[in-house]
Every structure is written in structure tokens, then in C-alpha cells.
């Protein structure tokens, strides 16, 4: 079974997680730029973080046979902090980088005017850079947040077919689907979705344009939730092909819109040292 986790914050995870993920079938991840729990106080702090998402983290992932890409954005929470908003003016120089496969996570947290501005500006950046967008839907006042998100997407230059709406659930999936967006579900140990509810939604809405992620980060979360959903799908009678569509093909198609997805396995299987592989992959 091959698994693509389309939303996971590996910066917060250990190499044990990478090993366990590889053993569970994870061969590719996308790490969206988000907040760090502790608020940042300057744009420079973002740039070091972005550099890590493009440098150290994919390098670390490659040691464990996992292809790592990222999405870059000013996240909705910190879009409210005037110390952080200058980041918006520097995003373009990151959005041209090879490892960036979408603009994200953008969206709403508390639905403030500052969040409106950041969301609209970053949807425009996605259109300008021919990148899809990963849009986080808010945890509080979720349905209202989804509707406001869909309005802003409709007003933007970005095709809804280039938008992945994430953290969806039973109350928001239908309107997101009707809008033509890709449908993301975060499966968490206690909040957001669980495996059983995920399977029920798949039975209702089908596997088309559905992506499942662990959204694992520094909070209580489980980087193997993707695999657990796959197993729950099989147990509920879904075919191997359905599982592959949700856990591999759909993320590949969505992030593939960027034209920048490189999925050749980083070479864990060759038996050479990790370092030796990295050298060869870097060219002479």
C-alpha cells in the first residue's frame, strides 16, 4: 500500500515517526507552512522556517525514503499580527522554489478583516504563480467560515478546481463539494475527524477528490492515521483501487497541478548509505 499524507507538519515530528510512516507505506508528504504554537514576532522568523521546509526537512525525509514537498503562506492566525504581515511581500520569492507545490495553509481562523486581506492576497499569489491553494477551514464557527471562504474563492482569480479545502467534516463537506473544490479531511485522535466517520463520509460522497491527512503536528496527533483510514476503508468493503485513489492518486493529482511534484523515491531501497544516495541524487 502506498500512502501520500497531503498535510503533515513533520518539523514537529521525530525520526522515529519517519521510520514508522515508511513502514506503514507512506512514501510522500506535503508539509504546509503553519504557526508554531508559539507566536512569531518578526518576518525573519518565517523566512528561517520556510528555508527549513525547503531545505532541512526534505533532506531529513529523504533519509527515510519519503518524498517531502511543502506549501508556503502566511497562516491565518498570524495574519492578524502586524509584526508578521510584511511576510506577504516576500512570499513571491519562495513561491518560485521547486519544492513548493501550493500556497497554504491560508484561510480563516477568527474571520477578521486582516484575515480577509491575507486570504484574498494569497489566492491571487497562487493564481499568479500557477499554484493550487491549500485552504484551512476554521475550527470555530466552521460552517459560516466555510461559506465565507467559498465567497472569497469565487471572487478570486483562482479556479475552485485548484483549491483544496481542508479540515472538512459532516457539516461542511457538501457545500465544499458543490463548489468544485478538492475535499480534505484531517483525522485526529480526538478532534476533527476519526476513521469511522471518515469511512461513513466516503460511503456517502465517494472517493472522488477526497484527500485524507493526519495533520500531525506538535499537538496530540498521530502520523499513522492515513494508514488507519486505509485499513478502515478496506474493512468497510472499499477496494484497493479506492484506497489508492484517496491515499495516493488524489493528492498526486491535486499537488501535481503545480507541475513540481517529484515522487521518485529518495532511494531507500538501493542499500547504499543514505548519505551516498543523497550525493548521487544531488548530481556530481
Amino acid at each position, binding site marked *: 500500500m502506498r500512502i501520500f499524507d497531503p498535510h503533515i507538519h513533520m518539523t514537529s515530528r521525530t525520526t522515529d515517526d519517519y521510520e514508522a510512516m515508511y513502514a506503514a507505506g507512506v512514501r510522500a508528504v506535503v508539509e504546509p507552512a503553519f504557526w508554531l504554537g508559539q507566536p512569531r514576532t518578526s518576518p*525573519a522568523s518565517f523566512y528561517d522556517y520556510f528555508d527549513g521546509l525547503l531545505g532541512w526537512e526534505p533532506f531529513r525525509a529523504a533519509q527515510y525514503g519519503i518524498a517531502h514537498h511543502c506549501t508556503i503562506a502566511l497562516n491565518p492566525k498570524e495574519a492578524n499580527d502586524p509584526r508578521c504581515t510584511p511576510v506577504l511581500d516576500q512570499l*513571491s*520569492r519562495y513561491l*518560485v522554489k521547486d519544492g513548493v507545490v501550493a500556497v497554504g495553509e491560508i484561510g480563516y481562523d477568527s474571520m477578521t478583516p486582516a484575515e480577509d486581506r491575507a486570504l484574498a492576497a494569497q489566492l491571487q499569489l497562487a493564481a499568479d504563480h500557477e499554484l493550487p491553494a491549500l485552504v484551512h477551514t476554521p475550527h470555530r464557527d466552521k460552517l459560516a467560515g466555510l461559506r465565507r471562504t467559498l465567497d472569497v474563492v469565487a471572487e478570486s482569480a483562482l479556479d475552485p478546481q485548484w483549491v483544496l479545502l481542508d479540515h472538512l467534516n459532516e457539516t461542511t463537506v457538501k457545500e465544499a463539494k458543490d463548489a468544485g473544490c478538492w475535499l480534505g479531511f484531517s483525522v485526529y485522535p480526538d478532534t476533527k475527524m476519526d476513521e469511522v466517520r471518515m469511512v461513513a463520509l466516503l460511503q456517502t460522497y465517494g472517493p472522488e477528490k477526497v484527500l485524507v491527512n493526519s495533520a500531525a503536528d506538535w499537538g496530540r496527533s498521530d502520523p499513522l492515521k492515513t494508514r488507519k483510514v486505509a485499513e478502515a476503508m478496506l474493512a468497510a468493503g472499499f477496494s484497493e483501487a479506492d484506497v489508492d485513489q484517496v491515499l495516493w492518486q488524489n493528492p498526486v493529482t491535486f499537488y501535481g497541478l503545480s507541475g513540481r511534484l517529484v515522487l521518485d523515491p529518495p532511494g531507500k531501497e538501493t542499500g547504499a548509505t543514505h*548519505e551516498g544516495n543523497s*550525493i548521487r541524487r*544531488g548530481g556530481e
Partner: protein
Amino acid sequence: MTDSAAELRAALDDSARAWLDKTLNQAAEHAKSSAATSGTASLDEASVEQQPAPALWELRFAEAGRRCGAAHADTARVLLLQAAQADLATVTRLYRQGTADERRAVLLSLPPLVHGPQALPLTEDALRTNDPRLVAAAVGPYAAEHLDAHGWRHAILKCLFIGVPVAAVAALRTRARGDAELARMLGDYAAERTAAGRPVPDDLHRVLGLTQAPGEGHAPCKES
């Protein structure tokens, strides 16, 4: 057109070749126009982070990997840097704002672009990382020419530690020859590995052999 440009063009498909030609032109145009206006490039921190919009060719520099394919990215980027006649301030900015692949290209193009030791901070930065792709690019001809003896010896040890083949080290034979201090460091490292029950890398023996081979009829040693 340089030999490597001709070779790269031959290896690319039509759309990548068209991209390369257009981008090399943009870089050359930029070189012409900045030759007319510049001479005041400064290296302070503010100038690195608070640039106006980057020149077009610099954006193309970032996308070379996906346009030309990963296998040709180094060559394409090095050609771009040469066509733009990137100066110290530019290579420094591109390095600092670059991904590991972009940084590699900057390191690989240093010898013709920067003549003195002023770009050594980039080499030293790369040698502080644990990324073999960067370390391999950092131990090229620029390091061979400018890195001091202490830094160069540590670079050799770094290669052995993280598995960068010493074949990547420029001027290894000439710089290692007769270097008793390097020989001592290698011997200590080998002893440490052995004490820990770990194998000693073959490359260590190879370099150790080079340090202990004064005149074997090779070119005369230039110990700096």
C-alpha cells in the same frame, strides 16, 4: 556559446531548450545593464534581505530544476550565474535565499565568478551543514584555492564523517601531500572508530596515504 551550454542544450527537450535560451538572454541583458550602472553593490544585511523585486533571471534561477530536470539543474544554474556575471553581492544573496540545490549551484560557480577569498563565508556556511550535497559542492576548486589549512582539514574530516566521497575534493592530492597535521587528525579519527568497534572508511586510508606520499614523481608539492 560555451561547451557546457552546447552540451546542455543538446540534452534538453524543445521546451526546456527554449526556456534556457530565453533565460540565458535575460541574464546576459541583465549583466549588460548592470555593468553600466553598478559598482556600488554592498553586502550589508539590509541589502540582502530588503531587495527590490529580484531581477527576472534570478526568478528563473530558482525554477531551473523543474524546467530542465533535476539532472541538469546544476549546469543550467551555473550557466545562468555566468551569463549574468553575478557579482559577490548577487551570489551571496542567491545563496542565502536559495534552496540547497540553488546553493549548490552558487558554490559550483564560485571559482570563475569570485576571484578573491571574499566568498569564503558561503563555503564555510555549506561546510557547517550536514547536507552531503552542499558539502560536496563546497570542497571544489574555490575551497582548494582559498580555504586555510585548518578549515580545509576539517572539511576533509567532514566528508569522511557524513560520507561525501573524497573524490569530490578538488586538489586533494596536492593539498594533502606532506600534511602531517591532517595525518594526525585522520589517525586519531581512525583510532576512535576502531575503539568504538566501527569500520574505518576506505576514503580515510586513501587520504592518509596521500599525506604520507611526498615526492612519488608527481607534480611538485605546493604547500601554502
